[in-house]
């Protein structure tokens, strides 16, 4: 097992090297990143104590090491964690941002995974955006399900999957603004990361469930929203916006996934089992590339149209369900409070 190979192979997916971003894009994202990190440093300084410094340092090392834990997916490829959503879910959004920023900075400084000029963008995509999704999608979703175990599973999976997709989308956006062809970058990045996101989701859920069941006290103190009281609190208006946004993003994802899902009705697992995960995932990308590189085809247009219609339907569904659950959640919150007293 060659560590260098391992470290490199797993990182290449999203770390933009120097040279691919135009200078204005790189600098603009640096500015964004600096502002966000500044806010995060502030927030941490205000809300938490000096205990957080060693904690966050060790957590950055933890994420780094956790990325090395992989599982074989047939065909010589392996799945592993990126960790942004997990960091935000376990540590809270601001600590999550700082931890992930340090991880990505270390990867660039120590191993040249991702460039230095592109570091601002890389930190934003894989650190800040993923942590933000972890918080803005994860927290309301967790509350929506009222602290149920299956809620943790569903919310964790969705959050993790979304965080990967959002990071991939942002990466693509930056590359495209820098002058690369949108018709190549978007499908290639999103397609591959739809699968990477599934691995991310599975690992995140298992890790989250492990921590919550082994050290519930810890999960609650580190990220306040994993505490039982916070989970039972009804979802407010602000969070509903978050949930709505999540619904939207899921819908986009579903639209993107639909061609694949229809190709293998038994689900992704079967595909992965029989044929090899990424081989299967990458194959179509390379088949698709020529389609998309030829300008003026009506194929993409119809796909996008279908996607948008699907998006609207799913969006309406998610919104409806969330409204329904919200009503039920309030009723249950009271019932559980009285129940827990006698139960303890």
């Amino acid at each position, binding site marked *: 097992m*060659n560590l260098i190979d391992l470290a490199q192979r797993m990182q290449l997916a999203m770390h933009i090297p120097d040279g691919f971003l135009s200078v204005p894009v790189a600098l603009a994202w640096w500015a964004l990143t600096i502002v966000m990190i500044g806010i995060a440093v502030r927030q941490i300084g205000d809300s938490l104590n000096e205990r957080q410094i060693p904690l966050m340092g060790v957590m950055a090392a933890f994420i780094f090491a956790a990325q090395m834990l992989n599982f074989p997916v047939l065909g010589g490829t392996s799945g592993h964690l990126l960790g942004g959503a997990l960091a935000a879910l376990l540590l809270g959004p601001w600590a999550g941002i700082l931890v992930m920023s340090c991880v990505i900075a270390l990867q660039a400084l120590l191993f040249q995974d991702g460039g230095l000029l592109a570091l601002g963008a890389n930190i934003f995509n894989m650190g800040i955006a993923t942590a933000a999704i972890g918080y803005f999608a994860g927290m309301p979703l967790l509350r929506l399900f009222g602290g149920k175990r299956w809620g943790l599973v569903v919310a964790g999976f969705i959050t993790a999957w979304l965080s990967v997709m959002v990071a991939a989308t942002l990466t693509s956006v930056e590359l495209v603004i820098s002058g690369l062809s949108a018709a190549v970058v978007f499908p290639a990045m999103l397609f591959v990361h739809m699968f990477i996101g599934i691995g991310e989701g599975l690992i995140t859920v298992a890790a989250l*469930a*492990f921590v919550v*069941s*082994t*050290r519930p006290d810890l999960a609650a103190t580190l990220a306040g929203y994993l505490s039982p009281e916070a989970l039972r609190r009804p979802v407010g208006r602000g969070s509903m916006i978050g949930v709505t946004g999540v619904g939207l993003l899921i819908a986009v994802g579903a639209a993107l996934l639909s061609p694949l899902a229809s190709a293998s009705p038994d689900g992704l697992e079967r595909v992965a089992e029989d044929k090899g995960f990424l081989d299967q995932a990458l194959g179509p990308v390379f088949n698709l590339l020529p389609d998309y590189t030829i300008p003026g085809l009506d194929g993409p247009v119809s796909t996008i149209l279908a996607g948008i219609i699907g998006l609207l339907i799913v969006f309406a569904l998610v919104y409806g369900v969330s409204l329904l659950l919200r009503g039920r959640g309030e009723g249950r919150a009271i019932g559980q409070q009285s129940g827990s007293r006698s139960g303890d």
Partner: protein
Amino acid sequence: MLELTDLCYTYPDGTEALRHINLRIAEGEKVALVGPNGAGKSTLLLHLNGVLRCRTGAITVAGHPIADESIRQVRAQVGMVFQDPDDQLFSPTVFDDVAFGPLHMGLDEQDVRGRVLRALDQVGMSGFERRMPHHMSLGQRKRVAIATVLSMSPGVLALDEPSAGLDPRARRGLIDLLRSLPQAMVVSTHDMRMVAEVFPRTVVLAQGQVAFDGPSEAILGDGELLERYGLERP
């Protein structure tokens, strides 16, 4: 049961960790592997189930040489337990952990359940199935770590420093456990008292070579030999 012929191993960075090792371990034989830090004990153990592969030399397990095709079967034959049980125990409950090996072997649930219960019984940890390894004492975790490989019913156990870090009482329990297990064993250790109590045969490694291979009494009584290899008297 286990036969190493002319085993050599050099780490990628050039460290020559093992040099021309020849060893035979019979069925049910218990062998202690001692020697100073860096002698190559852990490296040798890692060869027994093919985690490290020798370039020259050969290892046969129950008559079959270790090869790419057979590597997974070899792992069912040779149960490897590492020093730090936290590395070995990564599941939320003891049951899941002990079940990992059998599940990975593709056994059906009934069988897995039976094996888990039997393995836990062997190490004296029955009733701990639902407990979290994270919340148990070091001695208990060491026992469970041994159970995680016993559930695969291996013919040989390879243990790396099993008694390190245990307090005297837990260590006593471990010694009794090792004596009671019927499997062949290769156990690396710095604990010469355990050697005296459990292992009839001792192999001394020094700088990657077998410096002594014979009855434990012979070496334990020989102060000069012990001194030479940086070992303690028991």
